[in-house]
């Protein structure tokens, strides 16, 4: 068998595994886990936590990339939005976070922010289109 066919063989074995997984009831899968000495609740909690973190990481990466694109532009083209007064700026950001939970997740580690952080965050949200500068410019 050629090496390429080993890949085909493993792909075919995955099909067999898929058939078996789809043909096996929840109760049977649970029994397998228990027979293997696994704590089903702990396994599930661990897996969900990992998936939750993976989703958060994807959002953080997306925001980071958006920020990198912004900072990579020449200053003249940056077009940094005119920021509103600090209290209004904070209110705008909080409104956006309240309406888009995914942003809250991405920034969940930032519980206390300096004014500079708020301004940077505001710029990021404008860059992402989550805040329209015109919405507060009179």
């Amino acid at each position, binding site marked *: 068998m050629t090496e390429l066919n080993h890949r085909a063989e493993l792909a075919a074995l995955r099909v067999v595994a898929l058939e078996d997984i789809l043909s096996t009831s929840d109760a049977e899968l649970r029994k397998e886990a228990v027979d293997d000495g696994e704590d089903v609740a702990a396994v599930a909690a661990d897996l969900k936590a990992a998936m939750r973190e*993976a989703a958060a990481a994807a959002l953080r990466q997306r925001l980071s990339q958006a920020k990198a694109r912004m900072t990579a532009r020449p200053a003249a083209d940056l077009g940094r939005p005119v920021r509103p007064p600090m209290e209004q700026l904070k209110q705008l950001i909080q409104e956006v976070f309240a309406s888009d939970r995914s942003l809250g997740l991405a920034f969940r580690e930032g519980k206390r922010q300096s004014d500079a952080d708020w301004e940077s965050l505001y710029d990021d949200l404008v860059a992402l289109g989550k805040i329209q500068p015109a919405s507060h410019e009179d």
Partner: protein
Amino acid sequence: MESGKPPNDDPATDDDIRDAIEALTEDDALRLRKAAQGFLAGTEYQDPKELINEAVLRAMDGTLGSHGRHWPKQRVPFVAFMIMTMMSIADGSRESHLMSRTDRLEGLSLKGEGADHVLDYLGFWTRSVEDEALDAEEEAAATARAKVDADRIDALFAGDQEVSWLVMCIKEGKSPAKARELAGFTTTEYETIRKRLRRGVAKLFPGRRSA
């Protein structure tokens, strides 16, 4: 269904995916993990959780439209979508087995919830840009891994004539159904052998990370 063209579903958003993760039951999570264990051989992933996480990342990318894996949330349960995404990632090679997969899965008696949706989804499952983008170096690494892992599987079942027969038939390109027919296995016998194969492989590749 028009093959290769996903229906115009309401596209899943980031929040849809996060909500689906939160809504996973213990049984759902266990099924995802079992599937990942069954798919791990021959991949570069060190642990079933890594494969599952990669599927989450692809799903999140899919919400942007042009990259990743699009979850047709109206038609396919999240668990089924994740299982098929993991399988696609694990295959991760230029040779597509989608058609043979579909042939083999058609007519299968399925007990798992959402299985019909998996079959449905296979009809329009398409390869992603990432799948096509493997470079020569990755190809070489993948083929080397496949040989090592295929040899390990052979060695594991060297003393199990029934599983070895099934594996040998697969090596020769025969479908599992054909292998069952040739060996004269009853449906129950075949299902038992198949389960032994799946569980054995899962225990063989619980995680590759060296201590």
